[in-house]
């Protein structure tokens, strides 16, 4: 694979690769520990979708906002949620981002700008507008990125949310991570448009489809959308096409997926492809990348250990954080 004239500088390329690798390695660890029975949880693998979050991740500042969904590990990591607290939350421990009370579907880490993770399809979209509105009202140039799937583009919240953002020209980037399936349903069976980005026209905002497995193209499109939002020029709907390597959730028999399609997608795995490209074009040496990967692996080792050794929440925690100031009981 040859050099790309549209590629960002080396630091950015490496930053993207770092995010991707962190996601990929983290996901692999989750899956192996789940498979071996060391841990038990409902797990939505983001494998295959790494480029997308890395693509917006490198454009965002710590004070920018991100909203995501149950399949959110890649987004959490791209926004900088620390590994230890993230792992601990996935394992339901007191040391987790949410004291173990939210779990993987509800990761929240305001310090890194990861504001809301929701399990209700589409519902993060209207909430993202609120972050955009807050920035607009405050006169800051903070950007909000909200991630959701192809399936989410058929629910009412998508429509209402994009419409409001279009009317108010909110600084929000709507990132549809189109992995071609919503749970067990292929996109074509639920969505009578070829490109979800076409729907942007209904909301007076630009819509663009990008190959979400192409880190450079994704980086570029995300950069433009983030820049528009930052400049106060309004929202963008970005459809990033990708593939869900491991089905809807861990344990999914995937009978409804085309075997060859999946095989082809996995053969075109974007993370090793990007790695190879970085090497081929002299953006990094094998040693450098290997070191990076080792560092990440070590950090994951540390996070896993931290999480596994963390206590479960105190029984009292059931009753705290329901209200600011009211006590509740059983």
């Amino acid at each position, binding site marked *: 694979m040859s050099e790309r004239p549209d590629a960002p500088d080396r630091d950015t390329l490496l930053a993207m690769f770092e995010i991707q690798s962190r996601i990929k390695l983290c996901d692999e660890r989750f899956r192996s520990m789940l498979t071996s029975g060391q841990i038990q949880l409902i797990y939505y693998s983001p494998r295959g979708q790494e480029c997308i979050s890395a693509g917006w991740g490198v454009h965002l500042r710590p004070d920018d906002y991100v909203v995501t969904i149950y399949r959110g590990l890649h987004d959490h990591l791209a926004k900088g949620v620390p590994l230890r607290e993230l792992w601990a939350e996935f394992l339901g421990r007191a040391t987790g981002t949410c004291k173990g009370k939210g779990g993987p579907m509800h990761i929240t880490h305001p310090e890194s700008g990861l504001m809301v993770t929701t399990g209700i399809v589409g519902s993060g979209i209207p909430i993202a*507008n609120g972050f955009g509105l807050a920035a607009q009202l405050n006169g800051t140039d903070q950007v909000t990125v909200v991630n959701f799937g192809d399936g989410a583009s058929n629910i009412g*919240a998508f429509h209402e949310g994009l419409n409001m953002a279009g009317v108010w020209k909110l600084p929000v980037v709507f990132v549809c991570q189109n992995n071609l399936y919503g749970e067990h349903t292929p996109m074509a069976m639920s969505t009578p448009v070829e490109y979800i980005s076409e729907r942007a026209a209904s909301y007076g905002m630009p819509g663009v489809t990008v190959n979400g497995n192409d880190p450079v193209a994704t980086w570029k499109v995300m950069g433009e959308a983030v820049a528009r939002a930052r400049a106060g020029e309004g929202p963008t709907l970005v459809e990033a096409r990708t593939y869900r390597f491991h089905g809807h959730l861990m344990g999914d028999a995937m009978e409804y997926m085309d075997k060859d399609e999946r095989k082809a997608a996995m053969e075109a795995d974007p993370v090793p492809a990007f790695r190879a490209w970085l090497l081929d074009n002299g953006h990094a040496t094998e040693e450098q990348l290997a070191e990076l990967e080792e560092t990440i692996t070590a950090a994951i080792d540390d996070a896993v250990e931290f999480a596994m050794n963390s206590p479960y929440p105190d029984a009292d925690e059931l009753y705290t954080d329901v209200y600011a100031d009211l006590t509740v009981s059983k």
Partner: protein
Amino acid sequence: MSQTDTDHPVLTLAMAVNQALDVAMGLDEKVFLLGEDIAEPSGGVYKVTKGLSTKYGTHRVRKTAISETAIIGAAVGAAIAGHRPVAEIMMFDFIATCLDQVTNHAGKIRYMSGGQTPVPLVIRTSAGAGRGFGAQHSELLEAWCVHTPGIKVVVPSTPADAKGLLLTAIFDDDPVLFIEQMMMYWDAKRYGGPVPPGDVRIPFGVADIKREGSDVTLVSYGRQVHDCLATAEKLAADGISCEVVDLRTLVPCDEATVLASVSKTKRAVVVHEAVTRCGFGAELSSRIHEELFGELAAPVQRVGGANTPIPYATNLESDFLPQVADIEAAVRRITG
């Protein structure tokens, strides 16, 4: 309080709500409003937000499309980001179109984040039968949100309470559902009352004993407090002495005041406009029985809306509502 306050101008409920919004917006620029038709020139379909967009600008009094999910969603996000949005759902029944944002998000996000992201928003909504709007524009649905941990629920009965409780709601750090019964909005004669100026707040969880009595406790909230007072007045003529407790807020609920009153009178009638079955009255009745079992002279009575959708025809709509006659009958069942 409302009985004795002669120093302050008499306002309608709508004017009192408007004043609370005005005071809050003047105090804190993080307070903003959003909802359908709330800006000038009309100032809301019931004119409750009249004048505010002119005074504070359309960036702080934000007219939206007909998109309740987008309205509450935006309020949730902005609240987490540090604002104090006051969202209007034009009529309570419409909350069914956006309940996911209300219960699954506004109500749960503080908890799910382990306390990191409070959601200090207010949902104001107008509600209630009696105006010939039919089944889809007349309901009281507070029980849905009382059943949802994480949401506070307020139903004022007087203009002064509306103002004081709404100010508290806006500056409260939890999501608050604030229910305004529309029959009271502009009826100064029946529902008007003196309202103190300025930033006068009424704390949540403090019931108001509107009338003292010794034979039976009538517990209610919102417009039906007036029906309870009318019933009390009527029964006084027959020598039955009713204490009338106005809950003001359902979450938190001032159980202490209710229980003290009932433990004095030994009898209670819980009155609300919502459908009786699985309404808030069921919760309160259960609580009273649980706490005062041995002390009660009679079972707690519930008087609520009929267990039906709300009919259109004037006579049926009026029969649907809990009426003074129903409250009276309930009292007589357990006194006498």
